[in-house]
């Protein structure tokens, strides 16, 4: 049955039960019929007929015999004749009139025989009732007549008998069919009842199985509830506790007996929240809704029996039971969890603070070390330019070498800090690869010579000339690798091989190999030398010196350029460091660009230098003055602002950390000043070179950055940008009428189109401003004004006139709202903005026209 429960149900409801219901009245009907038949059998009147029929013949024969015996007149016993006549007459009367023979009399032959017999008897009555003599003399004749009737009597018997036999057969067959029907109906009912009985047995078994399953499930549930760590509280809709599990007892400190029937609010809700709890519970019962039921877990405070309070996680569900609705609360003591979370958060905060401290430390250290070093090296440069004897020159050179080495180490650490705090930007530059490699070889051959090592470079296969990549980074990479090769090669040979890779490896098209015949690197070491702070064996490290950062930085820089690096080495035979780099071949640039910029400017600039450390200031002034510039020194930010607001300089070099007002504040002040003092290029001048710091500088309005210690090429390059006007003044964007970065027109249009559209924009702007001058709100009306603003605004955006466009947008909005005061305010601003915008764009228009 479990497999076909539906089938069984359908059978039971639609076949078996109706069958029984239909069969029962049928059974009653048939039973009634059977009873009737049986009753008929019991009171049967038919069996006597055979007797009567046979008796007719017997009594007829008696009568005939009596007649024959009394045939002689002298011996005739008339009484016997009369008696037998009467007996026969009586018997025939039954056949002729009896109810029993009514159906039989319908048979033609039977009736005919009765009539002929009756006729004979009736005729004979006269003789029988007559005088004895007449009867006596008539006996022979009577005998003959009676004997002649014998066939009639016989036929009576036979016909009657066959009729009654047939009737009996019919009755039997009727009873048989009735009994058969009864049997069929009974069997059907029996079968149906049997099936129902089976069904009820199965259903009963199933119900019992279900009951057992339910008991089991209940037991499981009980086990779960009693062993779970989660406190489970069941309450009725009045908020009275119905049940608690073991965990709830231990969590809250009440036994079930204590808590049963008590208000849940009094038990576990902290006193000051009980009112809110009660109100919430009443609302929930009244509306059937709760914010808590079925909405997941919420965090609450609960109270133990001893008054201790602790945080819990609560989830609620309502359920319907026979005793009415109940509310089930699942509560978890989360004090430990919360403690752990707090611990974790504290640990994370500490770690973050540590990281920040490390970064700060690096930045500060770089500043603190590089600033005095800067002074030292600057003064050394100055000393070397003075007249010295041979010994002094050597000492100065040695000092300089040491100083530069120290600077190199500091820079290495700073490089790591730079990489750690974010990817430095790659600045693409164009240079001649052959010249570049030759410069490297030239620059390093001196060092190599000291180790009696020769160094050279060559192209294998066809070479490349002008390429584009970040030259500075590539230079650092090669200097590092060549420097290493020199360190580890004594009396040997170093060669730099360049070869084009065909086909290109990913995007890399050039392989550079730095091959030395030095001591080589063991296999294990090869695996880790590109990691930070890894050096080869310690004795060697001590011998050659190094922070262990070199190759780690190299690896990072190679990746930054989009290339890869690797090493192959045999200890004792030498090493090959290979680089795969994307060096895009480019056309030869015009001769006056590129590295030529690093030359001393041929034009004298007036420069304001704000620097608090005297040595640094001194060095800066000397270097700048040597290049022919006019230098004004100020010791702090405040002085710088004062100076810059009274005198116009070509450029300002601003130290960042200064007492009183620092460089950033000073820059903001200067940028906020009036024309022409606000537009002067300002370069940060700092040992703090972390990327986020330089971004910071730009944000405060500075235009560039020159690292400390002051390097002449860097300084010259920066000044060159000022001279050729490529330095964009990073003044406050509000003061920039045209934002070139936002100028779409430049990208979209060619020069001729640009000029045409620019002319059109200027005309439109002039026309709009002319309209605005003469009371536009009355002459134009808000709607036309808004439309005009909208039209000019889109063109303004095209040419990057962001401020002007924004102001037009404001006016458009104000006009659409019919806001008179706001509109007038914008109109007042617009004329000034347009003047500024037009001045800038006019310049472009002129230059475009050239």
């Amino acid at each position, binding site marked *: 049955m479990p497999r076909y429960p539906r089938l069984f149900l359908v059978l039971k409801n639609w076949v078996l039960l109706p069958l029984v219901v239909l069969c029962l009245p049928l059974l009653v009907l048939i039973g009634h019929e059977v009873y009737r038949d049986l009753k008929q059998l019991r*009171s*049967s009147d038919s069996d*006597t007929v055979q007797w009567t029929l046979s008796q007719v013949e017997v009594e007829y024969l008696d009568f005939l015999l009596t007649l024959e015996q009394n045939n002689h007149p002298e011996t005739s016993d008339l009484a*016997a004749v009369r*008696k037998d006549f009467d007996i026969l007459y*009586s018997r025939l*009367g039954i056949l002729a009139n*009896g*109810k*029993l023979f009514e159906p039989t009399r319908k048979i033609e032959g039977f009736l005919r025989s009765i009539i002929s017999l009756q006729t004979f008897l009736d005729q004979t009555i006269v003789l029988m009732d007559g005088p004895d003599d007449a009867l006596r003399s008539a006996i022979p004749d009577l005998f003959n007549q009676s004997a002649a009737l014998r066939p009639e009597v016989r036929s009576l018997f036979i016909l009657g008998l066959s009729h009654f036999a047939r009737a009996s057969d019919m009755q039997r067959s009727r009873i048989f069919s009735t009994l058969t029907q009864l049997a069929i109906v009974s069997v059907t009912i029996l079968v149906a009842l049997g099936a129902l009985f089976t069904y009820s047995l199965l259903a009963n078994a199933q119900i019992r199985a279900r009951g057992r399953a339910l008991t089991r499930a209940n037991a499981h549930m009980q086990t779960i509830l009693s062993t779970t760590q989660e406190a489970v509280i069941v309450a009725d809709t009045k908020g009275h506790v119905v049940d608690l599990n073991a965990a709830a007892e231990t969590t809250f400190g009440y036994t079930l007996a204590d808590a049963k029937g008590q208000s849940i609010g009094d038990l576990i809700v902290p006193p000051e929240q009980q009112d809110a709890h009660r109100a919430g519970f009443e609302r929930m019962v009244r509306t059937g809704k709760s914010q808590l039921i079925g909405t997941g877990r919420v965090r609450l405070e609960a109270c133990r029996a001893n008054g201790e309070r602790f945080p819990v996680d609560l989830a609620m569900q309502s359920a319907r039971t026979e005793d009415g609705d109940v509310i089930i609360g699942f509560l978890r003591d989360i004090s430990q969890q919360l403690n752990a979370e707090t611990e974790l958060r504290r640990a994370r905060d500490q770690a973050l603070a540590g990281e920040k401290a490390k970064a700060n430390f690096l930045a500060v250290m770089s500043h603190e070390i590089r600033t005095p070093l800067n002074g030292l090296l600057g003064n050394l440069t100055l000393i070397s330019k003075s007249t010295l004897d041979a010994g002094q020159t050597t000492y100065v050179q040695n000092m300089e070498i040491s100083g530069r080495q120290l600077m190199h180490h500091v820079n290495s650490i700073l490089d790591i800090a730079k990489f750690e705090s974010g990817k430095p930007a790659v600045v693409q530059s164009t240079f001649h690869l052959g010249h570049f490699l030759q410069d490297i070889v030239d620059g390093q051959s001196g060092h190599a010579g000291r180790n009696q090592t020769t160094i050279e470079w060559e192209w294998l296969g066809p070479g490349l000339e002008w390429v584009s990549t970040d030259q500075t980074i590539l230079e650092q990479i090669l200097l590092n690798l060549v420097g290493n090769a020199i360190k580890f090669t004594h009396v040997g040979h170093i060669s730099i091989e360049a070869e084009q890779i065909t086909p290109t490896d990913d995007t890399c098209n050039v392989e550079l190999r730095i091959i030395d015949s030095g001591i080589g690197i063991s296999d294990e070491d090869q695996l880790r030398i590109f990691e930070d702070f890894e050096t080869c064996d310690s004795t060697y490290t001590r011998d050659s010196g190094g922070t262990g950062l070199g190759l780690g930085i190299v690896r990072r820089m190679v990746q930054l350029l989009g290339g890869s690096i690797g090493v192959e080495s045999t200890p004792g035979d030498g090493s090959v460091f290979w680089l795969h780099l994307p060096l895009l071949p480019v056309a030869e640039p015009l001769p006056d660009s590129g590295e030529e910029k690093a030359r001393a400017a041929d034009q004298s600039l007036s420069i304001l230098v704000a620097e608090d450390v005297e040595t640094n200031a001194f060095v800066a002034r000397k270097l700048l003055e040597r290049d022919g510039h006019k230098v004004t020194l100020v010791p702090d930010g405040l002085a710088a602002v004062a100076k810059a607001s009274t005198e116009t300089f070509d450029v300002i070099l601003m130290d960042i950390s200064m007492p009183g007002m620092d460089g950033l504040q000073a820059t903001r002040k200067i940028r906020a000043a009036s024309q022409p003092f606000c537009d002067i290029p300002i370069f940060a001048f700092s040992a703090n070179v972390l990327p986020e710091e330089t971004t910071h500088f730009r944000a405060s309005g500075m235009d560039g950055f020159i690292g400390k210690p002051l390097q002449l090429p860097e300084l010259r390059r920066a000044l060159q940008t000022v001279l050729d006007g490529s330095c964009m003044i990073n003044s406050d964007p509000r003061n920039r009428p045209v934002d070139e970065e936002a100028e779409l027109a430049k990208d979209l249009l060619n020069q001729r189109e640009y000029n045409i559209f620019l002319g059109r924009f200027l005309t439109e702007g002039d026309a709009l401003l002319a309209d605005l001058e003469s009371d536009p709100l009355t002459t134009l009306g808000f709607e036309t004004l808004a439309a005009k603003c909208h039209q000019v605004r889109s063109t303004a955006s095209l040419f990057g006139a962001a401020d002007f466009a924004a102001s037009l947008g404001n006016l458009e909005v104000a006009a659409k709202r019919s806001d008179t005061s706001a509109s007038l305010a914008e109109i007042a601003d617009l004329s000034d903005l347009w003047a500024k915008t037009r001045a800038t764009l006019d310049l472009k228009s002129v230059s475009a026209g050239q």
Partner: protein
Amino acid sequence: MTINGIYSIARPLFLAAIVATRVTAGTAETEAMPVLEVTGGQGPDQSFLLSVQDLQDIAVENIVTSTIWTQGVHEFSGVPLYTLLQHLDVKGTTIQAIALNDYAVAIPRSDARVGGPIVAFAIDGQPIPRREKGPLWIIYPFDQSPEFRTETIYSRSIWQLNRLNIVQ
């Protein structure tokens, strides 16, 4: 159905002769003629000869019923068998009833009770002639109950009765 036909032939013949000779005589005379001989019940040789008048004097009860041997419903008048046997003060368990044609049937004494059969001597107020199953006819109240419409009762409903033999 038990037929005890071994009786001396003389007595029935004699009785029959008496009955036959009186048929033609007047009614009163006919009623005085002995029509029923009751034997047994008290002593081996004791017997009663009873006429219709004798029977009428004991008690008369009417039964209105149909029979399987006649057409329609008739009123039968006669002396209840129960009263008759009580009147004669005979003892016995079985009544052997015998007809003119020597048909004999055993009627258990238990049949002879109040509401039971009568020994009818009149139909619809008229004496029953011998030619019409008379002069005596044991009639059960057939229409009254199905228990009287059984084969056994029909067989006990003997006509042309002339003898009752009470057997211990």
